[in-house]
C-alpha cells in the first residue's frame, strides 16, 4: 500500500498517458508508475464488476510490485461503469473525488474490498468515506458534486468506447505503439509471461 502511494506521488510529478499522448488531471490521479516505462497498461474497470475486483486484487497488486515499481510498466486506471451496474458510476465518481485529495488507492481498495456490501445497499459514499479521516471525508463529499469529476468519468468511458472496449475489465497493453487488448480477470502469471515476452522483444 505504501509503495503504491509512493508510486502515485512519483507519478504526480511526471504523469501522462503514453497511448493518448496528452495528460490531464484525472489521468494523473489515476495512474501509477513512471511515464517513460516501456509498457503502458490502461485498465478499463467497473467498481461493481466482480471480475474487476478479482483483477484488482489478484493481478494488479503483484503487477504493481513487480513491474510498476521497477519502472517497467506504467499503469492507468480508467473508469468504465457498465449501465447494468446501478452504483458503478457513483463509485467511480467517489474514487475520482478521493483521488483529488490523494486518496485514490484507498478508495479503490475499500470499494473493491466491500463491493458486495455497497452494491447491495447503495451506500457508496459511506463506504469510501469510512476509509478516510473525517476531514478528508468531508472534502470528498463536497468534491464528488463537482461537474469535472463526472466529466472525467465520462471522458474515460468515451476513451474506452473509442478503443473498442465492450466489457470490463479490459486491459489495453501498449508497447512500441502496438496495442494489445485483453478482457477478463487475467491471471497474473499469464500477464507476467506476456509482459516478459514483450520486454525481451
Amino acid at each position, binding site marked *: 500500500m505504501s509503495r503504491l502511494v509512493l508510486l502515485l506521488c512519483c507519478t504526480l510529478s511526471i504523469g501522462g498517458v503514453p497511448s493518448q499522448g496528452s495528460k490531464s488531471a484525472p489521468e494523473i490521479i489515476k495512474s501509477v508508475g513512471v511515464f517513460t516505462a516501456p509498457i503502458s497498461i490502461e485498465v478499463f474497470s467497473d467498481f461493481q464488476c466482480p471480475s474487476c475486483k478479482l483483477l484488482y486484487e489478484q493481478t494488479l497488486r503483484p503487477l504493481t510490485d513487480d513491474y510498476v515499481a521497477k519502472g517497467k510498466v506504467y499503469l492507468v486506471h480508467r473508469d468504465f461503469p457498465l449501465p447494468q451496474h446501478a452504483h458503478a458510476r457513483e463509485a467511480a465518481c467517489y474514487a475520482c473525488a478521493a483521488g483529488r485529495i490523494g486518496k485514490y488507492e484507498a478508495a479503490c481498495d475499500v470499494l473493491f474490498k466491500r463491493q458486495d456490501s455497497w452494491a447491495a445497499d447503495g451506500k457508496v459514499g459511506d463506504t469510501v468515506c469510512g476509509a478516510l479521516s473525517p476531514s478528508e471525508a468531508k472534502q470528498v463529499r463536497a468534491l464528488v458534486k463537482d461537474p469535472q469529476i463526472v466529466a472525467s468519468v465520462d471522458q474515460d468511458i468515451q476513451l474506452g468506447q473509442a478503443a473498442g472496449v465492450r466489457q470490463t475489465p479490459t486491459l489495453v497493453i501498449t508497447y512500441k505503439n502496438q496495442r494489445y487488448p485483453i478482457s477478463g480477470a487475467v*491471471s497474473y502469471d499469464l500477464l507476467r509471461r506476456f509482459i516478459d515476452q514483450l520486454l525481451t522483444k
Partner: protein
Amino acid sequence: MNWRRWLVLILRVGLAAVFVYAAWSKLRQPWLLFAMAIDAYGVLPEWAVMTLARALPWFELALGLLLLTGFWLRQSAIIASALLVVFFAVMLRSYTKGLQIDCACFGFGEAISLKTLLRDGLLVLSSVALTALAFGRTTPSATPT
C-alpha cells in the same frame, strides 16, 4: 442426389473458411494473448491453457484445410462438430454465469453475447448437418459431380 452434393460443398467450404479465419486471427497475435483469453473462461488449469493456446490455432487451420479439400470428410466433420459443441458449451456457461469476457473466437474485442451464441449455434448446426450428409453418402468425395 445432386443437391446433397452441392449442400455438402457449401457447408464444407463455409466451415473451412470459418476455421481458417479463426486460426489466422489467433496466429497473427502473440499466443499468450489467446492464452489469457482462454484463461478468462476459468475452465482449465494453467498448463492446459498454455497447451491449448499454442495448439488450437494450428489445429483449427488443419481442420479448415481438411474441410476445404474434402479429405477424410467424415472424420473432419465429426471433429469440427465436436469442437464447435465444446466452444458453444463453454460460451453458454460463461454467458449464463454473467462473465464479462472476450469470446476470442475470431481475434479479440468481441464480448460473449446472444449474437456470438447464435452464430456459434448456427455453426454447430451446419457442422452436424455436414456430418450427417457425409455419412449419408456411399463414398465421400471432395467435389460435386
